[in-house]
């Protein structure tokens, strides 16, 4: 079907495995939901599983994009979930105090307040990591733990419901028949890609992640770069917080963005960014986030029993991670993917996917022998 060098170029592309996993996951849904790929017009907007995946996945994509840059500098940001909660709580409590909740000026001001709070959290993280030299995992743990308490303090432990049409737009509304959040995500991703790949910024981030001290010695202000990525990450989390609270028109200090930091880190890893820093792929992260959201949707649609949800999720994640490991592929497939060109072309790919569960259990004894 395809010529050999092209196939090799395809399998060697850094987005090949994340995209392959995404496609496989989407296809798994088809037997359970026959019209999974169909998209129809309902009430003047597009409606379908794919639209839902993008809509519900938007906050995760945003958080994960921010996380990518932090991880690229060799750091990690655990506080994003709490920042999501704080932003949502502040914004919703401000809107709910307004006499006219639908007044545009009030909504913009509320969102501004929320985002400023997010930036402050980011500055704090950046300050602790870059200036104080505290391990990122510890520095960001502070807001992860305390932030949720702050969010609850703002909401007074209640779920604040808002009734604001303009605010509803950002996370739950539609524009040009598409969920508005898609445009927000597209804008943030476009700006991020432009800034990191069309300017030297991306290179600087990778350089700091590779070796912060060496970067400093060649004249890169690594501290400033680090603070910047934490602020950017918190800002992304803040926008995600606006989306999450807007999606349900309510701020839930306790549950908004709960464990999103872990999903975001996972998305970054699936996307092929090294946790050691020094290399990142925004496109990979977006695909990774979509993989996670598709997985969640898949669990709901194929009727996995509630008690085994997490086991199912874990199994898929393990398989995905193993598939991404070149060493694992070389051992199991004997270098069919990656080193040598595959003869079967496109058809070989789903077949390999179906062999995954069996393959995942086989290699262990093999490795012991060798």
């Amino acid at each position, binding site marked *: 079907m395809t010529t050999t060098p092209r196939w090799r170029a395809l399998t060697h592309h850094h987005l090949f495995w994340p995209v392959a996993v995404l496609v496989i996951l989407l296809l798994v849904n088809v037997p*359970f*939901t026959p019209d*999974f790929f169909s998209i129809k017009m*309902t*009430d003047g907007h597009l*409606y*379908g*599983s794919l639209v*839902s995946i993008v809509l*519900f996945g938007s906050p995760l994509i945003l958080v994960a994009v921010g996380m990518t840059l932090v991880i690229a500098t060799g750091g990690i940001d655990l506080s994003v979930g709490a920042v999501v909660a704080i932003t949502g709580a502040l914004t919703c409590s401000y809107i709910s105090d307004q006499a006219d909740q639908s007044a545009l000026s009030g909504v913009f001001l509320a969102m501004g307040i929320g985002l400023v709070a997010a930036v402050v959290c980011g500055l704090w993280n950046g300050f602790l990591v870059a200036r104080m030299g505290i391990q990122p995992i510890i520095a960001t743990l502070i807001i992860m733990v305390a932030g949720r308490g702050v969010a*609850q303090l703002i909401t*007074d*432990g*209640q*779920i604040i*419901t808002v009734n604001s049409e303009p605010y509803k737009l950002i996370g*739950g509304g539609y524009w040009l028949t598409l969920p508005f959040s898609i445009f927000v995500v597209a804008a943030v991703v476009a700006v991020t890609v432009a800034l990191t790949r069309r300017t030297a910024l991306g290179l600087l981030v990778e350089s700091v992640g590779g070796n912060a001290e060496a970067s400093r010695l060649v004249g890169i202000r690594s501290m400033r770069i680090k603070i910047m990525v934490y602020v950017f990450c918190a800002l992304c989390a803040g926008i995600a917080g606006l989306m*999450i609270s807007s*999606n*349900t*028109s*309510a701020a*839930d200090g*306790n*549950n*908004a963005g709960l464990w999103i930091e872990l999903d975001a880190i996972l998305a970054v890893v699936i996307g092929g960014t090294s946790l050691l820093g020094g290399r990142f792929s925004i496109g990979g992260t977006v695909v990774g986030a979509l993989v996670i959201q598709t997985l*969640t*949707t898949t*669990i*709901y*649609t*194929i*009727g996995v029993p*509630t*008690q085994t*949800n997490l086991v199912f999720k874990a199994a898929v994640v393990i398989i995905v991670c193993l598939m991404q490991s070149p060493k694992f592929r070389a051992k199991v497939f004997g270098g069919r993917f990656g080193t040598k060109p595959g003869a079967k072309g496109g058809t070989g790919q789903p077949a390999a996917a179906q062999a995954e569960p069996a393959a995942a259990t086989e290699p262990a004894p093999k490795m012991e022998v060798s």
Partner: protein
Amino acid sequence: MLNRRNFLTAAVGVAAAGGLAACAKEDEGSSSSSAGDGGGKKLTLGFSQVGSESGWRSANTDSVKASAKEAGYKLQFSDAQQKQENQISAIRNFIAQKVDVIAFSPVVVTGWDAVLKEAKAKKIPVVLTDRSVETSDESLYVTLVGSDFTDEGRRAAKILEKVLETAGHKGAVKIAQLEGTTGAAPAIERAKGFKEVMDADHKDDWKIVASQTGDFTRAGGKQVMAAFLQSNPDINVLYAHNDDMGLGAIQAIEAAGKKPGKDILIVTVDGVKDGFVAMSEGKINAIVECNPLLGPQLMEVVQKVKDGETVERWIKTKESDFMQAQAKDALPTRKY
């Protein structure tokens, strides 16, 4: 050396004085109450709350505080912030302060034996509220004042019969269930009670076609329901283990171009204010109440326990069921 010793002595002295002062204060409190022993002694109740994780919980706290005040009891309130160790130390404090009765909503089910034995040794009766505990010795607590979650499930199924009748629904009933947090007692028991009634009375015509956890949250309910509507477009009933998930699901149903309360009949549990607002708008068909306002019942029990009367092992909260027609009238009375 001498300086240091002096300093230490002084420090110890100050600390002791502070402690004494604190003791004196407390003694004053207790002596005043014991002084009034003959005529209407002021009963002291130590109450340790789980935390403030939801609107339901805050309403629960407010109810306990208000009714203690009304009953004229002295309330020692402590918030455990979802941590068992906080709760244990709060209970130890209550024991040290020699309160008359200890009441608490346990954060978790197990691990209470030691501290409850301490209370028993001091002859301080313990009353559980809202949630139960597992102990080796049943005599460690006097009674539980709280909801029967299994019964709430049964009531949800019973009220669904009424809802179907009111809506004039004919044919198969395809139910989607939004479960609470996996492993939480309310989630397990609300599912169990509902299934009991369903298996007994509606084996042929009712079917749960999809069931998944929405973690008791609006966002969870919305996301799960959106997926359900794709995989099972013929769902015509939704049973949500709490109002919040139901409220999220309503948004998902609307996004799918269907009418909540009409195309899909909705029964939820809890009865928070937002739930009643949605019901008065016709978007929820029936709500099974899980009443957090158990303060008055708790105070009644506390008095009885203090007076040495025997009480039942489980005092169930007074709860009612609400159909859509009652929503408008009930709405102004909803406190939480």
